[in-house]
């Protein structure tokens, strides 16, 4: 008995949630939501809800972790217990620690860390609600929060997921699309001006030809995300008079 293959993109080129293959979910970014932090950002990306706060640059404790040539970034990615359908154990797992590490490396590429030797920049990101693509949502929010904190940066970090579901390439996959039998899901983050890739993690198997096309779509999508980030940062300081 052969099960009917699910259709992820219909004949009109629309996906399950009505988007086109190169369309992002709705993004809303708010800057400066936590007054006690140096910089902060709240981000909604589809059903993903993420809050990010930046502290520092400040003294590194314990002292032996300090780097006398540059600032270190300590990135804390955590998911709230209620962010997934089954309760998430609040103990930081392998996944949280790995995402924290790769995201910190991505932000290190973006910031001018040598301006603050011997200090630490602490980035805290909490995922309040999740539906695929939280690491990129978290990283996007974190880079906006860092800009809000006034940390000199080469560029913001923007990104999106790219992948394949039901044989079609697409960007910004939802949980449903990620669970497709032939799914390929790659988290991609770039510095939008130089198109430098700062984060890339992939699940699944994809041919080089397909990948080149997917990457192109991903970079285009990331640049759309960048526009949202830019707009949110500027909005904080325009308007009220």
């Amino acid at each position: 008995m052969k099960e009917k293959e699910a259709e992820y993109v219909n004949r009109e080129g629309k996906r399950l949630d009505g988007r086109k293959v190169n369309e992002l979910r709705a993004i809303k970014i708010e800057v400066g939501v936590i007054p006690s932090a140096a910089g902060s950002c709240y981000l909604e990306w589809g059903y993903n809800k993420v809050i990010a706060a930046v502290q520092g640059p400040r003294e590194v404790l314990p002292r032996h972790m300090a780097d006398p040539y540059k600032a270190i970034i300590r990135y804390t990615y955590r998911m709230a217990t209620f962010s997934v359908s089954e309760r998430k154990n609040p103990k930081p797992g392998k996944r949280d620690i790995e995402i924290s590490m790769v995201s910190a490396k991505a932000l290190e590429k973006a910031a001018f860390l040598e301006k603050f030797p011997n200090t630490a920049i602490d980035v805290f990101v909490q995922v309040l609600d999740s539906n695929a693509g939280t690491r990129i949502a978290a990283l996007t929010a974190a880079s906006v929060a860092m800009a809000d904190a006034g940390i000199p940066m080469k560029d913001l970090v923007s990104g999106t997921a790219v992948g394949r579901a039901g044989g079609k390439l697409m960007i910004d996959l939802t949980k449903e699309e990620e669970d497709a039998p032939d799914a390929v899901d790659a988290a991609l983050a770039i510095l939008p001006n130089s198109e430098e890739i700062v984060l890339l993690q992939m699940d699944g198997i994809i041919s080089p030809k397909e990948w080149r096309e997917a990457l192109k779509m991903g970079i285009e999508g990331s640049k759309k995300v960048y526009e949202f980030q830019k707009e949110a940062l500027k909005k904080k300081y325009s308007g009220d008079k």
Partner: protein
Amino acid sequence: MDKAIEVKSMHAVHAGKEAEKEEEFNAESSQSELNEKEKKIVVPGELLTDKKKRLGEHVYLREGKIFSDSLGFVSESEAFISVVPLQGVYTPRAGDVVVGIISDEKHNGYLVDINSFYANFILKSSRGPVLKLNAVVSAKVFKVSELNEADLGQVRQFYGGEILRVSPVKVPRIIGKNNSMLEVLRNGTNSNIMVGRNGYVWIKDGNAALAVKAIKKIEMEAHLSNLTNRINDFLIENKEVNK
């Protein structure tokens, strides 16, 4: 009473030095204030120009083009370009006058919190009277190491009053062009006000509550124009209310 007089004369000394320092800032910002409508906010990584210009602060060069590295306003002239940031931490510079709080005492000196990355050290031998924990002092930054550690000198103590913490990047606005804003604040509230470049503001006597409100207002509206006049009106309006 003696103390108050001493403090007032201190203001004169510090005010003179700050005026010198601020001139540089004002020279850059004055022309951006003139054409207020063209005041442009930029985000990190935004392209400013592809012309060749002298690089000021918070800009960087990549592939012959000039980009911003901070969230701030563009300050641009024929041959010069810089970005005035809207947020940021205080990095000590030689010549700055800062207000600090004594946070710890060691056997040969004091640790003083100047709102920078780490607590700075004052040698006991470099000054006479004993400082107590949480005493408010002003100091001049003589030298800054490559790790942004400040060498402090000319330490003076302030008695009484209160400390207000503001964002260090807003300090030039609180002082104003040729001390204009500080004069408005002092005349409007009759308070002793000492502004440290690091974002700590010491306020004593007079209508201190009003002074705090006015400074918070300056901080909120620092990026808007015609601020001095608006603060002047604000102080006159609220003169009686907060007494």
